[in-house]
């Protein structure tokens, strides 16, 4: 199995595009190319996710959502795609906005904070495969890397809250710090049992295990609980309702982003949706069989002869993982537009007194299950 980076370096060298055939230069070229690609991917993800979210929320709320801005022959109007260019227009508007830095802020921290959050989301995406071999870099400690790097984002949140010199921002930042640190633990524990069963931290190994055995969500009754704990903690990690306390627009105005505007605010926005994608992709890979075809898996259990209708292969793999991730993203939006928000102490209660004990017991029970049935 080779990752994107490996194939890109090899391709650059083979085609003789690197002067002198230096491997180091090829690496630099590949990194720059892939960095830009990931950035564009994040931006595209946010554009589509925001439009999706606005439409989902609109239909849940008995509205039509954006329906004026159209482009490329998609005219606006009361159609499903009526406002397809709305997020593009919004993004352009954000870029053109005045960049306000309030007078009494800690200027340097204020400027650097959004980029730390964005950097964390950016680095997390590098380690996540979106299909067999479709990964920027396939770490052998992939799960550990993604969990570790995505929690760096909390530093950016604390910095932005502190540097804003605004009481609401400070509240939001403090809440975010407490929340993200608390929910790291159940996430880690739920992943631990998967790692224990598979014996590897590499995403490809986990999916390979699920291919030869079965998807983790149906591995045993306990992994269903682990899946729920992981997904809900993931929702809390990315600060979405019912765990969106760091922003909580009705209490803290906008939480840690209160003082941000224009492009810096857009960076927050991009990283929020990038994190949503990371959590959904990770859940899909670890518990829902990643790029494995549900059709193929089902047919194989009934020993049907191999054929095209198995819908397997690298491109079908990318399709299936997207379907699973998009479904999970939809579930997150479903949460957001139906549930009210929890309170800080209830949030902590859920993490420390419900999720963590259950996750701990889960590890033990799955171990017993493996001993008995594996």
């Amino acid at each position: 199995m080779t990752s994107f980076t490996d194939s890109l370096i090899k391709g650059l060298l083979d085609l003789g595009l690197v002067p002198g055939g230096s491997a180091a230069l090829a690496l630099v070229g590949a990194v720059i190319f892939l960095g830009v690609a990931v950035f564009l991917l994040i931006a595209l993800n946010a554009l589509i996710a925001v439009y999706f979210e606005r439409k989902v929320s609109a239909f849940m709320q008995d509205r039509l959502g954006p329906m004026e801005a159209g482009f490329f022959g998609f005219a606006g109007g009361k159609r499903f795609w009526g406002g397809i260019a709305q997020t593009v227009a919004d993004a352009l508007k954000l870029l053109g906005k005045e960049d306000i830095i309030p007078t009494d802020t800690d200027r340097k921290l204020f400027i650097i904070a959004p980029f730390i959050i964005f950097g964390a989301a950016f680095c997390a995406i590098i380690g996540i495969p979106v299909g067999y071999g479709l990964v920027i870099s396939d770490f052998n400690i992939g799960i550990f890397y993604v969990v570790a790097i995505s929690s760096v984002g909390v530093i950016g949140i604390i910095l932005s809250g502190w540097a804003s010199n605004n009481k609401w921002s400070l509240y939001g930042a403090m809440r975010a710090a407490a929340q993200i640190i608390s929910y790291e633990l159940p996430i880690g524990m739920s992943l631990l049992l998967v790692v224990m069963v598979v014996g590897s931290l590499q995403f490809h190994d986990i999916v390979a295990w699920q291919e030869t055995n079965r998807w983790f969500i149906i591995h045993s009754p306990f992994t269903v609980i682990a899946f729920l704990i992981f997904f809900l903690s993931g929702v809390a990690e990315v600060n979405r309702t019912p765990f969106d306390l760091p922003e909580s627009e009705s209490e803290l105005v906008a939480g840690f982003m209160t003082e941000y505007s224009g492009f810096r605010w857009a960076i927050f926005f991009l990283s929020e949706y990038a994190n949503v994608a990371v959590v959904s992709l990770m859940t899909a890979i670890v518990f829902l069989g990643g790029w494995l075809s549900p059709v193929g898996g089902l047919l194989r259990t009934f020993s049907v002869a191999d054929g095209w209708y198995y819908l397997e292969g690298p491109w079908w793999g990318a399709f299936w993982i997207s379907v699973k991730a998009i479904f999970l993203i939809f579930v997150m939006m479903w949460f957001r537009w139906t549930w009210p928000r929890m309170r800080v102490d209830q949030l902590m209660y859920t993490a420390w007194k419900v999720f963590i004990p259950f996750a701990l017991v889960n590890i033990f029970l799955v171990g017993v299950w493996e001993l008995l049935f594996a």
Partner: protein
Amino acid sequence: MSEALKNFGVVKAEEMVLNMGPQHPSTHGVLRLRIRTDGEIVSHIEPHIGYLHRCFEKHCENVTYPQVIPYTDRCDYLASMNNNHVYAMAVEKLMDIELPERVEYIRVIVAELQRIASHLMALGAMGLDLGGVTPITWTFRDRERILDLFEYTCGARLLYNYIWIGGLSHDLPPKFVQYANEFLDYFEKQIVEYDRILTYNKIFVERTADVGVLPVDVAISYGCSGPVLRGSGVNWDLRKNEPYSIYDRFEWEAAVGKGEVGTLGDCWDRYWVRVEEMRQSVRIVRQALAQLPKEGDVHAAIPKKIRPPKGEIYFRAENPKGDLGFYIISDGSPVPYRLKMRSSTFCNLSVLNEIARGWMISDVVAILGSLDIVLGEIDR
């Protein structure tokens, strides 16, 4: 033991003063709260009002009696019909005017529809305060239909000037009864939907049950009224206790909090009273529509120039948000000598510090939502 040793290991945070409003998403207008907090815990709240003061009472001393009605519209702008109704009744009582049957029925119908509209707003806004964005769009969708009915009736959607002294500005339009009945049929099913998404939602119950408990004695000593008082378990509804207009002709029950999911008098009870009142209002409107006299004038025989006799009157009635009272002193001229409005939400807001102390900032928002304030009426 030395002082330093005694305090060793005792961590005490400094208190912080937080200014909430007047530009804040959930202070329901231009209320400003000065909150002293210890971390997230609130130790003292001081409401600062006056950002929407428009000298309502002083204005009233300079305009004739009928001209006061548009001003009452603008006090509690979510329940304009009820304000019109109370003021008109006050002046009619001062002048001893007998009203035609049909007028009384129409007034009750529009007042109860307005009560539903006002409670819908309260429900949605409370859901929004707690972070649920969907309920408010649903309640607004249904409130819209009531506003459509009012627009059909009198041309205005928010500030009606519909109930006049001694009658109404217009009679009901031709198919009003049919449309209103259609709306009620539709609306009764919607209440079940609100129950599903908000009232019995686990997170909503967790956020509101046992939070901001208002004991009965505190409620009474602060002069609370309306759903806030009834949420504490006091069966006090002026429509029942001091029947005015024709409320004694209908079959309905006053909604009183029961402490169903938590302590009696918590945020959830105040919220639930509103939901229950909407059901009761539907009952009242149904009966009133059925009994509505087919024919009749909607203007009582009153002099062209309204000149109440010398004297004074205090008249109060049940508004969606509580007891609304008008104290009018007449010196026999066409202009009130003095007009004082007793606002229910002003008293309801004053209890905030009493019940929100010791709770968190998130709870202050929930409690404020459950008090259902309208700054237009508090500042006047």
